[in-house]
């Protein structure tokens, strides 16, 4: 069996037992990428030379008995909005084409300190704006389970690469669901940690009050190992939290006896879920009940305003964060001959994609004079109401169980004509970002078309240990981890 078929934990164990070397495992990933990523398009940049050098260094450490931990020698991919010193970082945008950062972001530095082998940079929606990876300025990304279908977004490349076995784990970012939704579409585990749990320093900012860095792996155990390396306070991110970091892998007991699992009936009724999604939710619920959990109803009266709230807050913050892309300091420029205003407007007009421009203009509108109170300030108040709803819900439940998306993966091209329809499909994932909660997507079923269907568990802020344990229980009970996509 190729090492690319191993889950992160199993690969880590094999490395520890010296059944396989990091060089062998990394080469197997590179071979798989060379053989199959042409049809999928998950990687924007493969750093074969760098990865093999890191793998050799890992093997040398291990030979001396100096392995750094469970991630030492494990091949990992990075969404292309993580700044990597010396490796291009484009956020899948033409406006950052060729940009080489002069430093590593904190999450990248954490993985390097843990000895992980960084295989390359993964495809995504431009500036993390999108739910299908169709907004990448460079190339589309397909779902390894069916190349006619979207891998989800915005971290589509990360989810696809892990599902296809091109790397044992990956990092993504999640602002409105961009880890959890592609994880669901690609049948892997994806975690959005609580806001402030992982440093955002050195991540291309989209919406600073919503963005969060998180892991993908085939299973919850892999996510736990990655989170362990990433979690903690960072001097360079003033929003990162000083809260202690528990042992996440040790928390994966699968024991959910007495765990109160909250279901929100109104959410399901309102949001047009497909039968397959409802069925997956039932199976996840039954799995938890079989292991001793109790189900309670919770009510989140303001949740149906979450998408509207998000598309005001996130676009406002994006319009501010993306103001720095003016052709002066990073990447290519256009219109320089026309003077400074022309440099700014032409560079941004020609090098930003349609979705990015749409969101910047929306954000500009909701912040503009005369409208800021009516839109942005009001949205922040509704955000507070949504967070209060969750506070009350968590007095009755320990974790909440919801769908991740209304349907399994949709076909590429199916939603590109209707931006609003695409936005509405984020209805289940957006609330966790607004309230700062942790959220986990685990695979719970396969549709009639053999597409994965995930379910979401949401936990209280900083309750990742309990959340991961509940996800582990679902995963173990449902027994779907052995299925792999057939790659061309």
């Amino acid at each position: 069996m190729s090492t690319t078929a191993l889950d992160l934990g199993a690969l880590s164990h094999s490395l520890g037992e010296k059944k396989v070397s990091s060089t062998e495992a990394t080469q197997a990933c590179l071979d798989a990428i060379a053989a199959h990523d042409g049809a999928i398009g998950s990687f924007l940049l493969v750093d074969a030379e760098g990865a093999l050098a890191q793998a050799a260094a890992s093997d040398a450490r291990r030979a001396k008995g100096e392995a750094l931990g469970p991630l030492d020698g494990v091949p990992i991919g990075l969404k292309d909005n993580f700044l990597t010193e010396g490796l291009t970082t484009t956020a899948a945008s033409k406006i950052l084409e060729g940009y080489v950062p002069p430093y590593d972001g904190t999450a990248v530095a954490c993985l390097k300190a843990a000895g992980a082998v960084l295989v390359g940079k993964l495809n995504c929606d431009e500036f993390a704006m999108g739910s299908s990876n169709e907004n990448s300025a460079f190339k589309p990304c397909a779902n390894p389970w069916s190349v006619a279908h979207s891998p989800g977004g915005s971290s589509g490349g990360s989810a696809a690469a892990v599902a296809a076995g091109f790397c044992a784990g990956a990092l993504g970012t999640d602002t409105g669901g961009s880890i959890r939704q592609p994880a669901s579409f690609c049948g892997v585990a994806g975690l959005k940690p609580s806001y402030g749990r992982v440093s955002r320093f050195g991540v291309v900012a989209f919406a600073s009050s919503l963005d969060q860095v998180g892991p993908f792996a085939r299973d919850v155990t892999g996510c736990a190992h990655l989170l362990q390396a990433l979690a903690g306070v960072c001097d360079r991110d003033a929003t990162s939290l000083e809260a202690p970091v528990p042992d996440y892998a040790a928390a994966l007991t699968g024991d959910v006896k007495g765990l109160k699992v909250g279901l929100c009936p109104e959410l399901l009724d309102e949001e047009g879920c497909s039968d397959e999604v409802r069925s997956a939710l039932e199976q996840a619920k039954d799995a938890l009940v079989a292991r001793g959990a109790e189900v309670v109803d919770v009510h989140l009266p303001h949740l149906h305003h979450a998408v509207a709230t998000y598309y005001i807050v996130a676009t406002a913050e994006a319009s501010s964060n993306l103001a720095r892309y003016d052709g002066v300091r990073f990447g290519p420029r256009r219109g320089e001959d026309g003077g400074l205003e022309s440099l700014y407007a032409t560079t941004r007009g020609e090098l930003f994609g349609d979705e990015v421009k749409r969101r910047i203009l929306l954000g500009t509108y909701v912040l503009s004079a005369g409208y800021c109170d009516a839109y942005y300030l009001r949205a922040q108040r509704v955000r507070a109401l949504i967070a209060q709803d969750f506070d009350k819900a968590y007095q009755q439940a320990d974790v909440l169980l919801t769908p991740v998306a209304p349907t399994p993966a949709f076909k590429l091209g199916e939603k590109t004509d209707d931006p609003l329809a695409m936005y509405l499909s984020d209805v289940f994932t957006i609330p966790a970002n607004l309230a700062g909660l942790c959220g986990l997507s685990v695979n719970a079923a396969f549709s009639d078309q053999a597409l994965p269907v995930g379910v979401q568990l949401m936990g209280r802020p900083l309750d990742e240990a309990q959340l991961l344990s509940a996800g582990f229980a679902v995963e173990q009970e449902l027994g779907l981890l052995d299925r792999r996509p057939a790659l061309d």
Partner: protein
Amino acid sequence: MQFDKADIDKLGRLARIKLSDEERERLPAELGRIVSYVEQLQNVDVDGVEPMVHAGGGQLRLRADEVLEPVAGQAAVRSSAGYTPEGMTVPKVVD
């Protein structure tokens, strides 16, 4: 909410984005639909509710005002399209 081309042009100027004719045709309806959707928040009772800026409760950690490891000058500007060893070139700003 309805936008016309003049509204879009104004937003383009504020955002420093030069819009094509195709975008000026398309965007009024597109943005109009999205803004009409988000306007549902006008009907929410927010009396007495403080705005939520971010999930950390609005508290930001401070650190001592000390220089940390700086980013090397050349490395920081090397990716500029206007890079020269002396710094970045830009169009003339002051006459």
